[in-house]
């Protein structure tokens, strides 16, 4: 149980995927203009990340490792992720048109999201067990969501604030992201491994 908690804290705060490991930066900058869309993106990513880390673990342990095909892990993981994303899109489209409207164009974005592949690969490198993989995937997604939602809330304020002209738009976004990253580095001493 402690291990599980540690994994969560480590992925959400200390080794936040976005702000510390700098994975998944494209949606972080691209989908953070609005709080609503950021929330939708977070939800979708959480779902896909958890599911794909499970699937990739299964593929690795029961297919690649026994057959001695470890060198195929990147290829097969991309396949797994693409399928999971596609499947999720279909299910969401059918079951919740509203969520689909929110996620719509972001779901395909997740396919090429490095955070998703990163989690799958890191799971293998860290030699996580099945349960740990789930925890790791979920924690990474929670960290991603936290950073994205915080950032989009800040950007919403910035959008209506009087920003000096040269800093308007992406520039002030980058500065904000940098400041947030600095802030998250403060968590580095929280857990000693």
């Amino acid at each position, binding site marked *: 149980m402690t291990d599980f908690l540690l994994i969560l804290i480590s992925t959400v705060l200390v080794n936040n995927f976005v702000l510390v490991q700098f994975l998944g930066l494209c949606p972080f900058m691209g989908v953070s203009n609005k709080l609503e869309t950021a929330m939708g993106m977070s939800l979708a990513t959480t779902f896909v990340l958890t599911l794909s880390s499970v699937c990739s673990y299964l593929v690795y342990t029961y297919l690649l490792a026994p057959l001695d095909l470890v060198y195929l892990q990147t290829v097969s993981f991309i396949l797994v992720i693409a399928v999971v994303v596609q499947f999720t899109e279909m299910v969401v489209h059918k079951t919740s048109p509203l969520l689909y409207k929110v996620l719509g164009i972001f779901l395909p974005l997740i396919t090429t999201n490095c955070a998703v592949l990163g989690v799958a690969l890191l799971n293998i490198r860290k030699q996580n067990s099945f349960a740990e993989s789930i925890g790791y995937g979920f924690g990474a997604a929670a960290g991603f969501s936290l950073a994205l939602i915080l950032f989009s809330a800040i950007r919403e*304020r910035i*959008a*209506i*604030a*009087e920003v000096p002209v040269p800093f308007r738009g992406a520039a002030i976004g980058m500065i904000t992201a940098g400041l947030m990253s600095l802030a998250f580095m403060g968590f580095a001493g929280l857990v000693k491994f």
Partner: protein
Amino acid sequence: MAVYSFHGGIHPPENKLQSTQTPLVDAPLPRHLIIPVQQHIGMAADPIVKIGDTVLKGQVIAEPIGRISTAVHAPSSGRVIDISQQPVPHASGLEAECIVIETDGEERWCEHEGLDDYKKLAPNELIDFIRSKGIAGMGGAGFPTDVKLHLGDDHIVNTLIINAAECEPYITSDDMLMRTCADEIVGGIEVIAHLLKPHHILIGIEDNKPEAIAALSSACKISRVPIDIQVVPTKYPSGGERQLIQLLTNIEVPSGKIPADVGIVCQNVGTTAAIYEAVTTGQPLISRIVTLTGAALKQPQNLRALIGTPFTTLLEFAGLEPDKLSKLVMGGPMMGVPLTSPHLPVIKTTNCLIATTIEEMPPAPPAQACIRCGLCEQACPAQLLPQQLYWFSKGKEFEKARQHNLFDCIECGACAYVCPSNIPLVQYYRFAKSEIRNEELEQRRADHARARFEARQARLEREAAEKAEKRKQRALEAAAAQAARKKAEEKAAAEAAESGESNASDDAALKSLKVAAAVSRTKLSKAEKALKNAREKELDGIDKLEATVVELKTKSDEAQAMYDAAVNASTSPEKIAKSDAESDAKKEITLDLKALKQQVSIMRTKLKKAKASEVDAAEILELEARLNTAQAELNTAEEQQMAKAAAAGIDLKQLKIDAALAKAAVTKTERAAKAAETDQEREQLEAELPQKRETAEQLAQQLARFE
């Protein structure tokens, strides 16, 4: 009983002493009274007087329309000299419909009578009586009072609160009223209490009006209903309805609800006095107390002014020094609106006029950036987040502003007062509110238009379906009729055959022929069937059968031919008989005209096409020439017809329409000429113009002749 507190609030300098030094006097009677027909919330009243009418003081001059509306009365006797758009005291500075009365100085009252004992009247009748006296809330909003008095019907009213707080700086009109007319106020409270039957009655008054408190206390002692006077500490905006309710009862009126939903009704002291006046003497609301104050006046004071008195009259009376005046404000310094012109009338909600000098109310310094200090949040009496609302209003994120309860803002101005950056916060909220209201209106309008569009679409479809159905029905009916006729004919034929009188008449002959044809047809088909059958079964004697069929066919054909010939012979003479020389001639003319018209339109289309396909100019010119000749022909033909028609003395209407059409053609060509892009086009169009004009003139002349 404890006095509670509300969140926020501010303590601006009161400035109330200046205007309470002299006793209340009547304002002079002005030469002209300008009375807006809308002085209240709701529908504008409808004028029932005409220009030139003589009116008496207190006479109804505009009647309420709808439930939320009040009547308007003549404040003095005189003559109605104008009913038109006049500038009215409103933040927009726009004009609205007003009745202008020239006073005769006689102040002749119309007949009016109070109620001997209002308790004898049914509540509804008493409320209608109050409604007929034009009483609307005098605190500032101007909500028709009778609507509030009806609240007892569907709400249980526990508490009646009389708002005497008058929290805004400078304003002392309610203070003066309480000092001079405490008995009337208490009398009015008794009337309201009779209607609403509250469990207890509270008067909320700020502690900066000791004389008014004393006057009210002595009046309450002799009152027939128990009234509690609650003195509240001076704090702006304790006079806000919701704030006063919280101060006195510690009940917070929920967002989006009205006080009556929590069992409370609030009335202003001015309103109660007006109700008393109306009930006891029958006098309608035609005057009110107005505070005239500000450093640009020699004698700040309170005046009892007639509704419709121009501000200039009042300001002059109070000794305005025009060179000192920098800004004229209607209402208090916090919530009032600056006026662009003093030529505006007093209305039922005008409680104060401030003529300020530049030192007294300096122009607002330029707004600085928001430093997010949070002072506005601490000052907000509605417990909103003014800073958030400011950002949302500024960034036009109106949906978010609404989610942050923008509509609970009472626009008291406390946030703007404390803002260290001098941001005009209330202006932002007002802007956002009116934008949201406008958006809602547009949405409603769009929904309405969509509903109407869809209804029309459905109607068109239904009509088309009905038409198709009718056509089908008609076809069926026709078929049935035909079948019936056939049957009858057959029957007749059979009868004729039976009686052996087949050649008795033409008709009978026809019928018999038809029957013969039918019989031979049946025979033929039978034979054919037999033949087919035989062929299938490869029986003997096919040859024979075939021969029979051929024979039968010729026979049946012969019979049919004979029948046809007979039918033709019988119908053609009728036709000739029917035709009529007169109608023929008529047809010829119309046909001619029609053909000509068609020719012209064909030419025109050709010309258009030629122009569109950009063939050489010569061809276009030729076509144009042809078009013109065709047009001319048509015109002459039309004229001829017209002449004929004139001879017959008919179709003036047709002529009129033609004249209008010709006129329209001229204007259209003119417009086209103006809009034409190339010189060539313009020249062409201009060349066409005289001709068209001529036609139009000719038609007009003809029309004139006939008329």
